[in-house]
């Protein structure tokens, strides 16, 4: 990444049947941004991420990465290469980890390197072990997902994403499916990534965490960006009534114990 990358999302619209989920999202993400996305359930936070990497196809919208501009609404039909390119430049961490069940932690991380990036096995293994090391999972390299706790699985999933060297990491509620005592280890890992300067979009209900780690925060409601600013601005001095209501409901005045 020689020059600064920018991701420019324009006019992203998505509806499921007649239910409008994203109602014209315009969003620019600069390299090194950690963008926290907050908002009530069902406002399209996850859908936003899933449209970016084409797990969902939106009705309209485009994304500009550096030089290339990709039409998100018909990339699958018009140019499959674009989809592949998009997916190679983004990495996704899922709420339910989605590790490959019949592969060990090591094989999970190696898979994309071998099949997508066409690296040799030795090279892939080397990279995979390095990434597992980074998330503190090397000792479990030979374990299958079912042997691992939720937090451990999520750390392997993060290593799987990191190994692919994506320009943009999409985190879709990475701690929502975890037992409370396991949330900390995953947040620690994400914080580490933020400090290393990875560009991320983090959808999460861990408000206190977003407040600490994010460089920028948006509040999404009814498919629109309602509030956009630094976490401090959004959390302490929201300009919109809806944001205030939401924060009040989340009773964000008290900080949870496991904040790191």
């Amino acid at each position: 990444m020689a020059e600064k990358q920018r991701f420019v999302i324009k006019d992203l619209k998505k509806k499921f049947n007649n239910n409008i989920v994203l109602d014209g999202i315009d969003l620019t993400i600069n390299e090194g941004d950690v963008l926290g996305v907050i908002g009530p359930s069902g406002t399209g936070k996850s859908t936003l991420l899933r449209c970016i990497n084409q797990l969902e196809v939106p009705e309209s919208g485009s994304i500009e990465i550096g030089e290339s501009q990709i039409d998100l609404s018909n990339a699958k039909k018009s140019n499959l290469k674009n989809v592949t390119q998009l997916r190679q430049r983004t990495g996704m961490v899922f709420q339910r980890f989605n590790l490959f069940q019949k592969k060990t932690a090591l094989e999970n991380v190696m898979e994309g390197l071998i099949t997508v990036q066409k690296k040799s096995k030795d090279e892939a293994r080397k990279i995979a072990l390095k990434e597992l090391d980074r998330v503190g999972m090397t000792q479990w390299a030979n374990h299958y997902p079912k042997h691992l706790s939720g937090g451990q699985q999520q750390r392997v999933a993060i290593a799987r994403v990191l190994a692919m060297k994506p320009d943009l990491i999409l985190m879709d509620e990475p701690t929502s499916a975890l037992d409370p005592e396991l949330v900390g280890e995953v947040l620690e890992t994400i914080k580490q990534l933020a400090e290393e300067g990875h560009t991320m979009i983090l959808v999460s209900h861990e408000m206190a965490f977003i407040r600490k780690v994010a460089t920028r925060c948006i509040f999404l409601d009814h498919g629109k960006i309602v509030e956009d600013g630094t976490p401090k601005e959004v959390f302490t001095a929201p300009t919109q009534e809806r944001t205030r209501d939401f924060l009040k409901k989340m009773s964000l005045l008290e900080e949870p114990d496991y904040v790191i």
Partner: protein
Amino acid sequence: MTGKIFDFKLVFTQIPDLLKYLPVTMELAIASTVFGMLLGLLIAIIKIKKVKVLDKLATFYVSLVRGTPVLVQLYIAYFGVPMLLKYINQQTGSDLKVAAIPGFVYAVLALGFNQSAFDAEVFRAALLSVDKGQHEAAAAIGMTGWQSLRRIIIPEALSVALPSLGNSFINAIKGTSLAFTCAVVEMTAEGKILSGRNYRYFEVYVSLAIIYWAITILFEKILKFVEKKISVPEQVEQIRPEELESLRNQKSRAYAAKKNHNGLGGELAWQKNRGLS
């Protein structure tokens, strides 16, 4: 003829004679199973992907095959297909050597078609049982649909399908006893021939029952073994520091030779499949 009502000894002494035709039985079973599974997998994918027209055709085909007895299917294959070919010869002036097609081919086709209808349902259920998240994870790292199917989805579905596929194979073995309808001499047909000489029909059927039963037990055991082999192990020991060190410096070849006692079996299998080791 000894005049005994039931010649107990004969039941066992004629088993070796019958076993001479075991290879024919197994060839029939294996060939029709392979054919049936491939076709079944294809049908399952067509139905899951809801391919236009083919999808409807597949449903019709499965219903037809499942709704008719194997014996009838065998007769249709053996008598119907040559008639059709002869008709084609007559109409187009082509010169298909209909008489040269051995009965074995008809038997394999009929038994295979029969199995495919059942296997299609097995595969369909198994493929649908794989969590959607697995597809998404594969897609999200940039794998193509085919790559994710081949490397992630099918291996997982296979674990689910294996017990039923094993059943299907065992049914196929027993189903071969009907291949005489296509003039194939396999074990059961040979039994009939043998007993035609000494009129000991009952004995020969008991012998055959014993053989089929034994084969079935054998394959059930093999199946159990394979199931265990491809399933994720119950527990895996943590890697010791020295093992980790050797893993870091491992070259694929040396690694493959080491075998999988450290629980990295899956990776070895890939290396073999991909010819990398």
